[in-house]
């Protein structure tokens, strides 16, 4: 096994790890399978290496099929219209089309939607009919995270090029990219957090995850702050700007921590928060919501804490039963713009996730959609954006029987990334 890994484990962990590795080493690839696979790969390899002989024939064939398909579709369409003459007129009045028209016209779901997928970043076009990939020049490098400024007008994008970190800013149109840090010596940068006045950015790198770096948005005034804890992800300033909260670990446990930036005083908020996207400040900055995964009681708890008063309440719980293929995890917790509800996704894999809405008035928890993830509420609160099967959809939250509106396919991206890096975030409305 990888000795570097073994050396980083405690003695107890090493013992357990060695048992697993011993079992893993009994898994041998059979010679028959190896032979079959190599034969298949050789066939495919030869096919890939063949020059483009006969391209005209292939092109003509494809064209023929395309014409045939168009003809059949035209005939089918004509038949349906003849049989149901009022169909097209009636469909224009359905709620879905009304929602779609309002979205495209910019009457609702205003503001750009940013998407992170496969290490790249894109913004919706103005008509919300597709995504415009930012960074065609690839100056940002491999995307790690993106976050809108508190006023929703600037997007901070964190990426890395061969291990050196970059932070760029762009506006709501994505028209230009301004470097804050380019090819920084800070190392592989992971996240950025905005100060509440939008004047400063905080970041951290894999090179040393016990310190954070704060700088002005023009890249000046770079300072280093020791945390005394390990940072794992998504730092956020507290509303008073004097501390940060983040998912990290002290010497005994991982969880959600608060560290004062003045005196490094540390407070453990919860050791049952298990992911960097499971906590969020309310829009007015008075409450902190977070999700605890209680594996012993097999429950997920959605908790809201009054930050100044120190009180907290459990808003809802969800069973996380140990059944099926592994047990679920939660992610992407965020508030509605009016602070009356919370939204998040929970599931066992990319194909087995659902989006939930929790009302702050204690009326409970609603499952909004199945087989979806990465929920994001628009600034006007009318629209829920989410990802399903590599496509982005919008759901009309003002209608009880809304049909999801297909927005666009996810951009192709740079290379394959885990679905947990897929994020959607709404910016502020464009002001002409």
């Amino acid at each position, binding site marked *: 096994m990888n000795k570097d890994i073994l050396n980083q484990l405690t003695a107890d962990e090493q013992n357990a790890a060695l048992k697993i590795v011993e079992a893993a080493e009994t898994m041998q690839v059979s010679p028959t399978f190896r032979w079959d696979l190599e034969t298949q790969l050789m066939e495919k390899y030869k096919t890939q290496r063949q020059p483009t002989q006969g391209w005209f024939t292939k092109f003509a064939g494809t064209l023929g099929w395309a014409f045939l398909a168009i003809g059949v579709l035209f005939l089918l369409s004509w038949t349906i219209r003849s049989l149901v003459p009022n169909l097209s007129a009636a469909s224009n009045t359905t709620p879905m089309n009304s929602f779609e028209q309002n979205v495209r016209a910019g009457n609702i779901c205003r503001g750009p939607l940013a998407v992170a997928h496969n290490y790249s970043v894109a913004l919706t076009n103005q008509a919300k009919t597709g995504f415009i990939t930012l960074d065609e020049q690839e100056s940002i490098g491999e995307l790690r995270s993106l976050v809108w400024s508190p006023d929703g007008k600037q997007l901070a994008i964190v990426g890395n090029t061969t291990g050196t970190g970059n932070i760029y800013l762009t506006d709501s149109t994505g028209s230009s990219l301004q470097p804050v840090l380019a090819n920084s010596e800070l190392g592989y940068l992971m996240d950025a957090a905005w100060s509440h006045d939008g004047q400063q950015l905080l970041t951290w790198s894999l090179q040393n995850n016990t310190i954070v770096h704060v700088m002005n948005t023009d890249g000046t005034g770079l300072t280093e702050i020791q945390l005394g804890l390990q940072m794992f992800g998504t730092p956020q300033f507290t509303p008073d700007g004097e501390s940060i909260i983040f998912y990290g670990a002290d010497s005994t446990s991982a969880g959600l921590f608060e560290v004062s930036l003045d005196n490094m005083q540390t407070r453990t908020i919860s050791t049952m928060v298990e992911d960097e996207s499971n906590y969020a400040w309310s829009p007015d900055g008075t409450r902190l919501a977070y999700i605890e995964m209680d594996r012993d009681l097999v429950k997920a708890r959605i908790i809201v804490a009054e930050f100044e008063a120190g009180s907290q309440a459990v808003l809802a719980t969800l069973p996380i039963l140990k059944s099926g293929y*592994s047990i679920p995890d939660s992610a992407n917790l965020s508030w509605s713009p009016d602070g009356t509800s919370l939204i998040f996704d929970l599931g066992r894999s990319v194909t087995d996730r659902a989006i939930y809405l929790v009302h702050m008035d204690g009326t409970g928890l609603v499952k909004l959609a199945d087989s979806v993830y990465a929920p994001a509420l628009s600034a006007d609160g009318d629209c829920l954006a989410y990802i399903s099967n590599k496509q982005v959809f919008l759901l009309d939250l003002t209608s009880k029987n809304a049909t999801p509106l297909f927005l666009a396919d996810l951009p192709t991206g740079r290379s394959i990334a885990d679905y947990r890096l897929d994020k959607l975030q709404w910016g502020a409305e464009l002001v002409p």
Partner: protein
Amino acid sequence: MTTLMNIKTQYPTMDDAHLAQQARTEAFAELYHRHLTSVFRYHLAHTGNTKDAEDLTSQTFMAALEGIDSYRGTGPYIAWLMGIASRTRLRHFRGSRPEVPLDAALQIPTPSLPTDKAAFQRLQLDQILGALKHISSDRAEALILCFFSELNFAEAGLVLGKSEAAVKMLISRGLQDLRTRTSLPLEVDYE
């Protein structure tokens, strides 16, 4: 004629990133030889079934061969390959086959071992794979990537979309879960 298999000898010392970036398709055979076992163990750990693991391993390498030109060299090749393996696995579990019962599954070939030892190993592997299904998916995935596929923390982090430190914590917690929440005996036998 150049074939996939005899290409192997042309790049004995070159690292993964250089192979994938500079030689593209021609270097695929070498990369295949280096990582076949990692990919196969990854799929077998998840499915607990040799036949499914072989199917998924085939699909992974077919997709990798098709897409090798899209590998940009911005991360380790093994992380890129295991990303494909992960997506292939998720597609497999979507729809009709959400779960393979372990007790009906394991058929691990261990021809060179005495029968009793092979049976013991099979039982132990069966127990470990069963236990992995009762801890959180993040932790199980981290354990499989690091201990079955032999990725380091940084490489596993790229596959999981987590920092290196976060992967280390997932491993620590995963090992703890396996010991405390399952009946898995993970103490080392001191002989």
